């Protein structure tokens, strides 16, 4: 029978998120799944409400992209009582809730940060290098994890030093504004050797700021960021960006397969299906990446 799946999506705060939503729809259409998406507008309380109403509608499975890692126990218990399997997408929840969901299809955001850090360390070599960091939204777990991963990776290299770190709220405009002030504060940018941004959007803004200050991003200042949205490849093609770590928007696809298998054959999947965090640099044919991504709804 046709499956009905409820998907409690966080909202639409970035291009990546929009892509995840639209890829989920495409994947659902491919598999003839009836996907109900409830958009939570960034609020946990809305997500809880949405899950409750999915339960009330007796859907076959619930996908949850949790806005925050805690606070799901009671609502997921309700889902469990109603015998509705839950799959986490994109973000994990607190370990205490392990029993309450079927599986999590996520990337490891600490690992993402580490990949970015390792790339930078490798690229810079032994040179002393002052790094500035554009953080994500204060309080967002992804931001904290990407910071943590990066920090751990560069901690092994004393020549790398994060000299400034400020939030750019994951947005282009703030990324640009913050980068402008970093440049001013660091001797017109001369003291900066690399920028690390928690997402590509902020980096795209930062690249503009560097250009306007007469600097050459990608050459004078190295860039590394995370997500792999199409626009960062455009910048790579132009030689203005160096590296990005991919976060695939296709988390629903594997999740659909897992649910289908579970429903039909009772196959219990592993607790964590980790998506790959690919490092993509200017050497990886950015034009091709750009072309393949631009239709995905970013």
């Amino acid at each position: 029978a046709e499956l009905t799946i409820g998907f409690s999506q966080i909202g639409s705060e970035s291009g990546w998120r929009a892509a995840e939503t639209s890829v989920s729809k495409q994947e659902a259409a491919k598999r003839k799944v009836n996907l109900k998406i409830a958009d939570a507008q960034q609020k946990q309380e809305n997500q809880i409400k949405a899950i409750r109403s999915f339960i009330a509608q007796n859907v076959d499975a619930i996908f949850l992209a949790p806005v925050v890692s805690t606070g799901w126990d009671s609502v997921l218990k309700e889902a469990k009582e109603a015998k509705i399997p839950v799959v986490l997408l994109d973000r994990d929840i607190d370990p205490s809730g392990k029993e309450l969901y079927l599986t999590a299809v996520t990337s490891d955001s600490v690992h993402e940060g580490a990949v970015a850090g390792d790339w930078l360390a490798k690229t810079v070599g032994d040179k002393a290098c002052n790094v500035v960091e554009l953080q994500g939204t204060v309080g967002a777990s992804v931001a904290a994890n990407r910071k943590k991963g990066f920090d751990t990776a560069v901690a092994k290299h004393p020549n790398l030093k994060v000299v400034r770190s400020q939030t750019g709220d994951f947005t282009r405009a703030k990324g640009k504004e913050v980068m402008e002030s970093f440049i001013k504060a660091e001797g017109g940018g001369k003291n900066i050797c690399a920028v690390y941004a928690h997402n590509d959007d902020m980096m795209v803004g930062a690249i503009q700021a560097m250009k306007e200050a007469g600097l050459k991003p990608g050459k004078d200042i190295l860039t590394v960021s995370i997500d792999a949205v199409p626009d960062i490849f455009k910048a790579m093609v132009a030689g203005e960006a160096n590296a990005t770590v991919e976060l695939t928007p296709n988390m629903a696809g594997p999740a659909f397969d897992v649910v289908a298998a579970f429903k039909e054959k009772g196959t219990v999947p592993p607790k964590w299906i980790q998506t790959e965090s690919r490092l993509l640099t200017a050497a990886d044919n950015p034009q091709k990446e750009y072309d393949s991504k631009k239709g995905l709804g970013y």
Partner: protein
Amino acid sequence: MTALLPRRGLAQILALIVILAVDRVVSPQFFDLRLQDGRLFGSLIDVLNRGTPVALLSLGMVLVIATRGIDLSVGAVMAICGAIAASLADSHGLPVVLAAALGAGLICGLWNGFLVAVLGMQPIVATLILMVAGRGIAQLITEGRIVTFSSPDLVWLGNGSVLGLPVPVAIALGMLILTGAVVRGSALGLLIEATGGNARASELAGVGTRAMILSVYVWCGVCAALAGVIAAADIMGADANNAGLWLELDAILAVVIGGTSLFGGRFSLVLAVLGALIIQTMNTGILLSGYPPEFNLLVKAAVVLAVLLLQSPKLSGFAGIMARLRGTKP
């Protein structure tokens, strides 16, 4: 001495100076300016440039507040108009793009004005409707993506420069002068102040209070549209999800710091813009300071309170100093 000092606005100017001084302390190169590719470059220019959207919003907002209203939808209107501009930028000329974006802002303003002036809804809920739905409309236009463009004309609006000044700053200055000319050059200013001061009495004196209210919301919409276009031009893309997010609060804050009462009546355009600059000077200072971002909001709260206390009629000490400077007894 007395003639040199403005009757109002001393507190604001003083606040700005103090914050500038603090900025200089946290960032020694704060006042450095140099010419870079034919445009001025430095933190002060950043303050002006980054302050532009809120300054533009506050130009419309101050008029709305003068009529005892409030417009929560300006952030959403920014997003809508930025999205429209970005989607048209690469296929149409700048005049068409601007006309479409500003036209959309005008329609948004008309809608708000209609709800408030004609249906008699309370401004805060009336504009809350567009605040919620408007961002949805903007996202509908961009389908949640960041719509980028490369039209050099539009990009120039965000990143170009005239006479060394960034174009946005020039536009904001132009709008300030234009708004000032329209409002103070005609009877609009007086009639708006009368409407805000006492709508019933003004109506009985023959003032078309509805038309006044409608027109201020329309103007507010247009200002927001312009701010939206500039914000989009700045990052060469329309980010419907985040453009103008929470800027309505900054705009209201700017107006109040500029000394206009939320209960309507007397207003000052220049001081509202000064309010926007005070906020941005503080924001830029925070970014330059190098403190961890967890402190941003605390600093903001402290500064806002301090600036307001400076203006409080009850702080007789300061009021006394101001009065003495002006040569009158407190």
